[in-house]
């Protein structure tokens, strides 16, 4: 019976990403790209600044994607995408979806100005931040997306990152853009659904995608999807949408919210934390989750 059974496929089958790319084993960022391209299809143009994907795609003269990519300067994902969209429209192509695809460094830090500018003007682009919580491409330095408590090369154990992760969704919501969504590589169906929804919306759409990095998190490569799932289930990285900057919808209620310590334990970057520090982090996650529930009207 099994011989006749068809494979269960919960995502579109077409692959717009080929093998041979240069990502580390177990890279979350590649799953994020793979999922997004399945949602958007081939009529897509990407603007990729300096980040892991600037290298993952492959060196000149090769590429591993079946869509065009403009590799752009670090802080220019949003401004380049703005220009590409304008150029395509003014030369008769109003169908191609233009996507700025940047890491957390190029979004939360150096790219924030261009992103804010584009969002304020409501440029017709989809901006996707794949977040591996540090400057991984340059060797694991801290960004403002690095969570409290994490080791990085510039926040060594004796000076671990002691500022909270910047709340990028709140910043984007303050711009009043039509659509914001978080997504996780452990929930690709949710990501694809949201991306397909976003494709049909005009104006600036912002995605914050959680993409574990075994190299930078000092975690096992085979744990990447598991860690992404745990982060959703313990409310470290909740799944939600914000429409028009105000209407927040939680995509996953957590009836049985898991404690963060199991999640932290699987990552070497948190190994140095004391019980007290973990307890403080748990309190912060709980408080943030409650605020989210309030905003969602639950």
């Amino acid at each position, binding site marked *: 019976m099994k011989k006749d059974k068809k494979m269960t496929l919960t995502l579109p089958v077409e692959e717009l990403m080929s093998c041979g790319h240069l990502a580390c084993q177990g890279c979350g960022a590649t799953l994020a790209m793979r999922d997004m391209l399945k949602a958007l299809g081939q009529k897509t143009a990407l603007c990729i600044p300096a980040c892991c994907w600037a290298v993952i795609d492959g060196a000149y003269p090769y*590429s591993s994607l079946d869509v065009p*990519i*403009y*590799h752009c*300067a670090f802080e220019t994902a949003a*401004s380049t995408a703005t220009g590409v969209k*304008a*150029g395509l429209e003014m030369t008769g192509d109003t169908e191609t979806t233009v996507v700025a695809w940047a890491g957390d460094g190029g979004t939360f830090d150096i790219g924030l100005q261009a992103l804010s500018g584009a969002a304020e003007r409501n440029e017709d682009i989809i901006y996707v931040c794949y977040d591996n919580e540090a400057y991984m491409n340059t060797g694991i330095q801290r960004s403002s997306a690095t969570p409290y408590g994490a080791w990085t090369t510039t926040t060594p154990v004796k000076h671990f990152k002691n500022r909270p992760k910047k709340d990028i969704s709140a910043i984007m919501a303050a711009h009043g853009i039509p659509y914001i969504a978080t997504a996780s590589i452990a929930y690709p169906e949710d990501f694809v659904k949201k991306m397909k929804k976003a494709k049909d919306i005009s104006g600036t759409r912002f995605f914050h995608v959680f993409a574990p990095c075994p190299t930078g998190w000092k975690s096992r490569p085979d744990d990447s999807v598991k860690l992404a799932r745990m982060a959703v289930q313990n409310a470290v990285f909740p799944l939600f949408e914000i429409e028009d900057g105000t209407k927040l919808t939680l995509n996953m209620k957590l009836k049985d919210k898991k404690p963060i310590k199991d999640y932290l334990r699987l990552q070497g970057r948190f190994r140095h934390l004391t019980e007290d520090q973990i307890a403080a982090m748990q309190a912060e996650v709980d408080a943030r989750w409650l605020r989210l529930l309030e905003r969602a009207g639950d």
Partner: protein
Amino acid sequence: MKKVMMGNHALSYGAMLSRARVISAYPITPQTQVVELLSEMCADGSLDARFIKVESEHSAMASCIGASVAGARTFTATSAQGLALMHEMLHWASGGRHPVVMGNINRSMAPGWSIWTDQNDSLSERDTGWMQYYCSSNQEVLDTVIQAFKVSEALMIPAMVILDAFSLSHTYEVVELPDQAEVDKFLPPFDPEIRLTPKDPHAFGGLTSPEHYFELRYKLEMDMQKAPALIEETGREYEKLFGRRLGLVDPYLCDDAGLILVTSGTAGSTARVAVDALRQAGVKAGNLRIKVLRPFPFEVVRAILRKAAKVAVVDRNISYGAHGIFYQEVKSALYGRPGMPPVFGFIAGLGGRDITVDTFKEVVDHTLGHEAADEAIVWIGVKK
């Protein structure tokens, strides 16, 4: 049709007649009128372009590049601090082979804040792989924008059209506006074979190892070296349709000159007046106004200057720790060839200090009064 307009508006009309499709710009004194007029033209439909009101000059150039690679003719304008902020992206436009045309108003670099003219802003960018045209009349500004698009798009190299702050940007002159239909004949739509499109997907500008980078930049230089001839040819084509030609340089009474002044920008037109006055007084002076600095017009500069007994370069800029920049470039162009005249170097007019006929009289007095050219800077008009 003749119109009285400021230099800034000559840039706007140049972009309009060239049918720029995407304009992305950020305001800075004294460029603001360029983009204000272009905004109005987009709003009233006389220019069919998308005007992106970006939040900084860095984003202006990044979005121009994005629009250009998507296949649109793009234009922007800036000055001084804005140009400096774009610096990273200037390299990007040339290295990426994007034919963006940009107006730059030569304004002094801060600190202290100065809105007046000198050339350090654009000259700081002379190594970025952009063509540089220095203008001395509003007519020239408008004509140069149109021709710059043609040359840039043929070579896939960006270009800046440069004019002095206030002395030209805000000075009103009569400008002949070419007929749009004639400009369309001269400058067809931008239609690049390779562009960013899902119909023909490529990754642009990916990680490039030592195995390939050298050749890519060699190719850029080889194409840049085609520019002098192409600029001359384009100028002759333009002259056929519009009656005006300006090549790489603008020589005035150089053929029989004993002393040739080398100038650029509006100082270049003041120098003509000075040359006339000097000739009246019995000095056989001439003026060589350099219009195109990049690519450097070696052959034509050598051909004109070799006839003189002395050359006096007047720079409205300085490379600290060395000398004026046009001086260095001219001197190096003449070096080592037999029969070349000595080159005297002067610096005047920084920060918008006025360059007058008297400035040139002082330059000429010094030059005639010295046998050999001193290597040290000769400062004109500084209260030492």
